[in-house]
């Protein structure tokens, strides 16, 4: 049976309670009659033979690119860059898509007799990956062939010798990327496209860039002018990356882009109820829900977090395309939209969403309050095309415990940002004055380069990610959130969803309309 498309359910008296993520837990909430719930499409059918599809893509590239074997020759410098641990979410079951693609590229490189091959994890300003994470992404075979010979690198945006400035775009944006990638005869980029924002020129222009380059589009102004940043045609973030990408190409960097899309088969069998529509839950789904939710309630939070971060997603590849960046990305975007787009008519006064335990920046880590804000106001709020799901001045209700907890190894600068900057202001346009000091702090740079810390400036980016939503919304209410943390973020806290709805009525007036963004699976609302 072909997967069913997404749709909007109008809640009535016979609609069962709706599932909300609540961090490391999930709850069922009964929504008022007349509310709408947006359900994403069911997972698309995966490629029957992904390896054959990858080989086909490499041999039949899109755009004006030549087949990959024709670009490979003995004696050349080949660099293969790949997306880092922030994709996909949750991490997928082995074999990871990156492993499948990189192995095929290396097969062709070996056949061409190329000795000078380096693999680079395109971290941008994210934390360095651990050995286990690299092995998971690339497979043991690739890791053991390259890492011991120092041929498996992690992009270091603070290495003065490892970066090269390629000039500025016609808008005056600095373009500085990884030197090895820029000076290679061929740069092959291996991407996983989970949401419409990923991929395209952003892969190289952001993934292999420095702070000097990133600051031109990772800022509050760009985000406020990206409506949304998931919609390429209305995203200033996208435009800036495209300018940089074209500049990189014009500078002589030859990029062979390989992009993959995944279906939204996000959780394994024991959590399959998460992806099913509540009225279709079987006895097994209900038992799984009760068992899992009760177990997680009784489990200490740290252990519950470990359990959930140990979940490996059964994501399967739905498409792979290779060749010239823009042609490839156009095809990729089609596939992402085919999987995620749901038509929705009209905006709503109140938008509710449950936030899970994971976002791109806390894989194997803690979802601190700043990341909660980024996931809700940055990512989920922006999962729209056309108009935001919630009207201007409307209310966003998040369901998350928002613990006042940080991972000191992964997010050291977040702690200072939370304590020093957010106590001063929560206005994305006003925090810019602190950005430079965090970005150039030697201690943060040291931790970024040698440990597993996100770059010092990263929490600013997270807050910039929220800029559009903060400008658009009348209020943000967090159900079940830690009081101090929620208030520090500038949001309101409610104990229950019913309380939150009462508080929301004070903002949007009586008899508001309510829409719930049901997740998982990931979806993008096409609001008309």
């Amino acid at each position, binding site marked *: 049976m072909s997967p069913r498309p997404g749709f909007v*359910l109008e*809640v009535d008296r016979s*609609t069962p309670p709706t599932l909300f993520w609540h961090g490391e837990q999930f709850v069922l909430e009964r929504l008022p009659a007349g509310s709408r719930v947006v359900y994403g499409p069911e997972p698309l059918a995966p490629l029957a033979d992904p390896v054959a599809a990858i080989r086909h893509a490499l041999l039949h590239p899109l755009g004006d690119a030549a087949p990959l074997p024709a670009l490979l020759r003995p004696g050349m410098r080949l660099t293969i860059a790949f997306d880092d641990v922030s994709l996909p979410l949750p991490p997928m079951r082995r074999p990871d898509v990156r492993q499948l693609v990189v192995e095929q590229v290396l097969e062709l490189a070996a056949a061409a007799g190329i000795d000078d091959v380096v693999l680079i994890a395109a971290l941008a300003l994210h934390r360095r990956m651990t050995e286990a994470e690299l092995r998971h992404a690339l497979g043991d075979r690739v890791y053991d062939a390259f890492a011991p010979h120092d041929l498996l690198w992690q992009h270091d945006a603070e290495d003065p010798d490892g970066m090269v400035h390629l000039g500025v775009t016609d808008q005056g944006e600095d373009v500085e990327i990884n030197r090895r990638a820029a000076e290679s005869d061929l740069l092959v980029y291996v991407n996983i496209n989970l949401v419409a924002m990923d991929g395209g020129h952003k892969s190289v222009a952001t993934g292999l860039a420095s702070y000097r380059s990133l600051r031109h589009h990772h800022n509050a102004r760009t985000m406020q002018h990206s409506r949304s940043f998931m919609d390429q045609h209305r995203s200033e973030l996208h435009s800036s990356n495209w300018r940089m990408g074209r500049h990189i190409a014009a500078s002589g960097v030859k990029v062979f882009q390989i992009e993959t899309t995944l279906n939204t088969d996000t959780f394994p069998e024991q959590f399959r109820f998460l992806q099913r529509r*509540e*009225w279709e839950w079987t006895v097994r789904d*209900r038992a799984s*829900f*009760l068992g899992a939710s009760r177990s997680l309630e009784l489990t200490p939070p740290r252990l519950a977090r470990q359990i959930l971060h140990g979940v490996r997603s059964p994501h399967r590849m739905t498409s792979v395309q290779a060749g010239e960046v823009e042609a490839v990305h156009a095809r990729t975007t089609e596939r992402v939209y085919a999987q995620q787009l749901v038509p929705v008519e009209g905006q709503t006064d109140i938008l509710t969403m449950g936030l899970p335990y994971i976002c791109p920046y806390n894989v194997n880590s803690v979802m601190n309050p700043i990341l909660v804000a980024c996931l809700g106001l940055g990512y989920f709020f922006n999962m729209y095309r056309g108009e935001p799901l919630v009207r201007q001045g409307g209310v966003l209700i998040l369901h998350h415990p928002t613990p006042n907890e940080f991972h000191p190894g992964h997010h050291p600068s977040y702690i200072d940002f939370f304590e020093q900057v957010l106590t001063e202001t929560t206005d994305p346009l006003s925090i810019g004055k602190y950005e430079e000091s965090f970005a150039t702090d030697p201690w943060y740079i040291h931790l970024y380069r040698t440990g597993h810390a996100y770059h010092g400036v990263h929490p600013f980016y997270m807050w910039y990610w929220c800029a559009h939503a903060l400008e658009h919304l009348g209020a943000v209410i967090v159900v079940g959130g830690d009081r101090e943390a929620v208030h520090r973020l500038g949001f309101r806290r409610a104990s229950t969803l019913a309380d939150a709805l009462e508080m929301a009525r004070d903002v949007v007036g009586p008899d508001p309309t309510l829409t719930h963004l049901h997740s998982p699976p990931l979806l993008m609302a096409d609001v008309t």
Partner: protein
Amino acid sequence: MTLPDTLARLRSRTGRARPSGFPWSAPTWPGGLERPAPQRALGVDYDTDWARRYPARFVRAMLLDNVTRPLTHAVATPTVEGLELLELVALPAIFVANHSSHVDTPVLLSVLPPRVRHRAVVAAAADHFFDRRWKGHLWALLLGALPIERHRVNRRSADLAAELLLEGWNLVIYPEGGRTPDGWFQEFRGGPAYLAVRTGRPVVPVHLEGTYRILPKEGDRLRRNSTRVTFGLPMVPDDGEDARHFGARIETVLGAMADEVRSDWWSARRRAAAGTTPSPRGPVAGPWRRSWALGSAPGDEVDERRWALRRG
């Protein structure tokens, strides 16, 4: 009282209040959504694959040999004729029999040689034997039943039966599509002939006599009666013979076998040669005359309550 009600009452008696409603109970269906027909995989869609795996076959063989056969012999005391003709049959084969009673299948299976009965499936009405999940499980396990759509042509039924024949399974099938209401043959359907033409497997005609008295269609309890099972010569379609023609031949042969049971082999053969074999479908007459004409076969135990049973 339904099971959930019973559980709720028990809970209240034990004083242990439990959460109720979804997800403790089944979800309700949103009013705005059209509810699709439940996909319960019943009827012709019931998957009997499990019943042909070794564990189920082993259980079935144990039950058939140690429970069904002794019980059948006790109730039906079958006399078997023509069993030696099976030596001529290249198995697997299609065993085509007239159908008078639910005991036809146990009787037939219990007289078949082990090599046949332990690798046999029985075509069973999907709407009767597979309309509940428990019934599907029971009959698939006990008899190796296969759901067959009897009211219209169903490709899935035919494909599955043909596939199993080609895999080496013997098929027991009743071409009348259901039990006779009055003891006479009903019109034969084309399924067995079609399968024979399609798969090239031989048809073994089997006539069952006396089972109607044990448990007729409207009957509600078993009555002991002797039965007679007659195997005919295996039949194969002639070159170029279509299913319709072959089906008619099968019906003619079974009719002659019925005549043989009611008289003797030689008389029956002579009538067959002369084209005067009485119609196995009985006279065109009112119900009582049809029943009267049925009479009793030689060796039948006279059932004093026969008419009373009919009325009941």
